[in-house]
């Protein structure tokens, strides 16, 4: 509504003065009427009204310039008709009939208008493609970044009234701790019982816990919280219920809620999970609820919520609890701070005789330092994303400038056509419709293509985005983002559609105007400056993304020590209730391996206790025979992998010396070990490790030998453990799974537990197609076994390079957009210059200039600007090299190959963009060129 009023004031000031309020009221009611039938019709009505205002504005100005009075009473007005519109009954009748035809076939008329505009655009394919592409890229980039900003920054907390949520934190000036102390048991009760500005308060602590039962042991992240967290967050579980107050009291039975992720991962999203028991760190705990997928508090990694043992009787306690609270309605953070600081001063009275309370209040200058939960969650990311949004907004402006330039070039070349149309009596409305239809069509195309680009870009961003971004997984192009795109499209339409119109108005007599209509030097300079800046920007982004692409290639070309292609992996845990000893576990794994090996399409299969790049490896110090430790020397550390026979073959690992571990070793429980290259180089520098012995350190047993010596039988290539490019490879060793540990083994053994194994199935067909048959085969052995983390080895490798891929894709998109805009910008400017100089070129051609020479001159003119822009870009890229250095791998930020290739590529493209208008100039026939001016 405000927009309408504003446009009204802008477009038809006289009408606005007199009828502004009444018109807005009418407009409102009309939109409201249409709203009853739906959002679409309402939008159509609103758009129609707004477009009509523009047309009105043009007609208004036109009328004023030509000194025409109002034209409502058509004939008979002496000032307007000098005889030729006279003739009562005939002219008005004709006009009315045409009007009627027009109105009766309004949709046809509109369709005709659109068809004609489309035909006009098709006749200028270069202009159309350039405009649509520019709009699409700019709108696409804006809509996708906006979608991310909207979810991650504007509305990062999916909780009701989330602006009232605050984190509770403290600092103590006397201890030189500015913030981050958290709070204590005692502070929680002090606030929960006495703070009037807070509606509810909760404290929590997070840590990793091991859960067993139903699907093997798993290390997950758990949060212990007071039962009040439910009231603070105001989010109900998706299934089951939240903790009751009674369950928060000490001595209550252990209960817990699980995350949506854990629920689907471990329990197949079965509602029957409620009431089941899960063993958390050895304590049987009843599952009472499942939180919704959107609940990611304190962070997205948490899979389990338990009750925190808070009690007033425990006294003041130690710091280290995190806190969150909901402010009462209308309360500000400042007033909360005042009240809580006052409550801190009152601590000794609240906990009489408690030394901790007395010593931790005023005496250490304890103050409340909490922020809003939103600031605490997205504070730093928000700024980066806003900057990103601002820069793509800038990109949109550049795009608009480019498109405006293209429109100018076009309107320049059509002035004659327009003048003729007007002379033949085309009215303001007609001309407005003529241009607006064209630009509306372009905007719709650009907006549609931009939307397609945005949806692809958003999907890319979500897949590749760093996991630390809150709510990134939920980002999608929803109604708001669509509306944003639509708004951009409409605004650009109006902006470009009116450019030729505003330029037309003062040229009412352009038919009479003579030649010599050339642009001033100043305008040329501004255009060239813009063109050069665009080239420089494109070069900087091209170099950066070129460096990223090379880094990515280097990273992917790294020898990972195994073959990631066409291999399916999954993890399988054997529940301790059914498989209670190491020997039953080993034979179960053998049975599964044998069954899967018989499947068609399986080339090799094996299993290991952990996979490269997937985490979860057991590490321990090792003892090497003959290497006695000096006092205070830290023993060497190695990662242990317990494997089934054929593991190295299934993983496609390279043998350097000796032999692999085979099925016979596992069956006979041979005390053998295969070591990685790093161990061989580091600890057997000048000797042959084959046949030597080493052992895993463990607490000395009461009887028997101190070490179980393992004989080295082979050396294999290193594999990466955490990231693809590990600065120093970690020592790794492999032993038969039958000599590792399993359920029922004595505690304290520090060897991999083989109850849960990661299977590797090397396939002859695409790995994804094998999942169903693998699942069916395992079901045939034990229906209670569930596959977890089903993925290909390639996916594991991809995930490890995701961070670099994300940066690379962002930069590549930006570089692509910048290149595109740069080329279009050059093309637009050069075309404009050529069109402005058509007369001059015609004269030169007529006087015998060679067309090739003319073209060369124009290319040279643009080329000089491009070269200057490239030089500026190269110096910026060289100067900024250090900024990007940390993101690169195996390449210098000043890599000459990247610099030279991108420079040549950009120069070539820039010259091509200059050559196209130059060729047109050269092909001009002198006669034609002279006639246009």
């Amino acid at each position, binding site marked *: 509504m405000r927009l309408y009023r504003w446009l*009204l004031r802008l477009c*038809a000031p006289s*009408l606005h003065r*007199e*009828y502004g*309020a*009444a*018109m*807005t*009221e*009418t*407009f409102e*009611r*009309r939109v409201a009427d249409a709203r009853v039938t739906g959002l679409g019709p309402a939008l159509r009505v609103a758009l*129609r*009204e707004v477009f*009509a*205002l523009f*047309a*009105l504005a043009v007609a208004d100005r036109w009328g004023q310039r030509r000194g025409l009075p*109002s034209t*409502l*009473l*058509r*004939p*008979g*007005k002496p000032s307007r008709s000098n005889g030729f519109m006279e003739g*009562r*009954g005939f002219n*008005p*009748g004709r*006009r*009315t009939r045409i*009007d*009627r035809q027009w*109105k*009766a076939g309004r949709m046809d008329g509109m369709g005709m208008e659109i068809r004609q505009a489309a035909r006009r655009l098709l006749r200028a394919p270069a202009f159309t493609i350039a405009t649509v592409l520019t709009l699409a890229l700019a709108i696409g980039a804006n809509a996708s970044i906006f979608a991310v900003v909207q979810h991650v920054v504007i509305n990062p907390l999916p909780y009701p009234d989330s602006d009232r949520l605050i984190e509770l934190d403290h600092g103590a000036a006397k201890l030189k701790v500015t913030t981050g102390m958290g709070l204590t048991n005692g502070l929680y009760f002090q606030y929960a019982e006495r703070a009037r500005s807070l509606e509810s308060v909760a404290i929590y602590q997070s840590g990793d816990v091991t859960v067993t039962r139903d699907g093997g042991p798993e290390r997950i992240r758990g949060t212990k919280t007071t039962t009040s967290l439910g009231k603070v967050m105001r989010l109900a579980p998706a299934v089951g219920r939240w903790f009751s107050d009674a369950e928060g009291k000490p001595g209550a039975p252990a209960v817990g809620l699980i995350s949506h992720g854990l629920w689907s991962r471990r329990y197949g999203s079965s509602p029957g999970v409620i009431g089941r028991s899960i063993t958390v760190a050895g304590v049987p705990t009843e599952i009472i609820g499942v939180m919704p997928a959107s609940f990611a508090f304190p962070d997205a990694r948490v899979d389990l919520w338990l009750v925190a043992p808070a009690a007033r009787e425990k006294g003041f306690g130690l710091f280290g609890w995190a806190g969150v609270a909901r402010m009462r309605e209308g309360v500000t953070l400042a007033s909360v701070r005042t009240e809580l600081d006052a409550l801190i001063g009152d601590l000794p009275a609240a906990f009489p005789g408690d030394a901790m309370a007395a010593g931790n209040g005023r005496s250490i200058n304890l103050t409340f330092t909490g922020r809003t939960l939103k600031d605490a969650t997205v504070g730093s990311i928000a700024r980066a994303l806003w900057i990103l949004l601002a820069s793509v907004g800038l990109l949109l402006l550049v795009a608009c400038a480019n498109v405006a330039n293209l429109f100018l070039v076009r309107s320049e070349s059509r002035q004659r056509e327009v003048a003729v149309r007007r002379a033949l009596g085309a009215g303001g409305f007609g001309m407005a419709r003529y241009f607006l239809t064209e630009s509306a069509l372009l905007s719709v195309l650009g907006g549609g293509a931009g939307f397609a680009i945005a949806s692809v870009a958003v999907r890319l961003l979500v897949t590749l985005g760093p996991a630390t971004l809150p709510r990134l997984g939920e980002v999608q192009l929803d109604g708001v983002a669509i509306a944003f795109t639509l708004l951009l499209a409409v605004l650009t339409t109006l902006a470009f559609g009116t450019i030729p119109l505003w330029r037309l108005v003062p040229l009412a007599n352009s038919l009479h105007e003579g030649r010599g209509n050339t642009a001033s030097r100043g305008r040329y300079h501004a255009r060239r400056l813009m063109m050069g800046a665009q080239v420089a920007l494109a070069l900087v982004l091209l170099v950066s993304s070129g460096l990223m692409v090379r880094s990515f290639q280097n990273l992917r070309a790294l020898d990972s020590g195994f073959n990631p292609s066409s291999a399916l992996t999954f993890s399988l845990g054997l529940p301790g209730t059914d498989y209670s000893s190491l020997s039953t576990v080993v034979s179960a794994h053998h049975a599964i391996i044998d069954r899967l090996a018989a499947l068609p399409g399986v080339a090799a299969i094996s299993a290991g206790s952990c996979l490269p790049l997937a985490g979860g490896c057991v590490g321990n110090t090792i003892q090497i025979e003959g290497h006695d430790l000096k006092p205070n020397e830290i023993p060497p550390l190695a990662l242990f992998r317990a494997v089934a026979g054929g593991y190295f073959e299934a993983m496609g690992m390279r043998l350097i010396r000796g032999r692999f571990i085979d099925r016979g070793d596992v069956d006979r429980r041979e005390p053998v070990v295969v070591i990685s290259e790093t161990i061989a180089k580091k600890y057997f520098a000048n000797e042959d490790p084959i046949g030597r012995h080493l052992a895993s350190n463990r607490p000395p047993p009461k009887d028997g030998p101190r070490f179980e010596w393992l004989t080295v039988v082979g050396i294999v290539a290193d594999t990466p453990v955490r990231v693809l490019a590990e600065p120093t490879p970690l020592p790794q060793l492999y032993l038969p799974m039958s000599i590792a540990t399993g359920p029922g083994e004595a505690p304290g053994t520090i060897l991999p537990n083989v109850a849960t194994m990661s299977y590797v199935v090397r396939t002859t067909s695409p790995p994804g197609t094998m999942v169903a048959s693998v699942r069916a085969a395992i079901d045939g052995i034990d229906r209670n076994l569930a596959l977890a983390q089903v993925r290909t080895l390639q996916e594991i490798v991809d995930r490890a390079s995701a961070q670099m891929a994300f940066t690379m894709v962002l930069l590549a998109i930006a570089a692509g957009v910048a290149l595109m805009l740069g080329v279009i910008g050059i093309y637009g400017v050069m075309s404009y210059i050529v069109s402005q100089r058509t007369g001059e070129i015609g004269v030169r051609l007529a006087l015998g200039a060679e067309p090739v020479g003319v073209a060369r001159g124009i290319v040279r003119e643009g080329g000089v600007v491009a070269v200057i822009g490239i030089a500026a870009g190269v110096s910026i890229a060289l100067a900024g090299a250090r900024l990007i250095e940390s993101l690169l791998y195996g390449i210098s930020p000043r890599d000459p190959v990247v610099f030279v290739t991108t420079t040549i590529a950009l120069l070539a493209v820039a010259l091509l963009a200059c050559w196209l208008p130059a060729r047109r100039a050269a092909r001009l026939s002198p006669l034609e060129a002279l006639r246009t001016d």
Partner: protein
Amino acid sequence: MTPALSDLAFHILLALGEGPSHGYAIGKDVEERSGGHLDPTTGALYQALRRLSEDGLIAKATGPGETDPRRKYFELTERGRQAAGAEAQRLDALVRAARKRKLFPQRA
């Protein structure tokens, strides 16, 4: 001699023939009476209303008190009544001429 009225202007005068009215209602009336052939946008409608006022065919009127204060009411002036009558006569003459030349179905 009164000049011929534009289609929209005549429809507006017709709408006001029933008594004073305001912009939104006039617009609705015009649209309904013309069977949707005429559906002026708010801008076009007020442009026409302003010109009719300037030409003295309609005048601002006071509306019933309880409505939206932003609303503006219009009523026919004596001149407007005459103009509408003249236009109706003109159209009637045209229709009769058309009938005579068998261009228009005869009334039963």
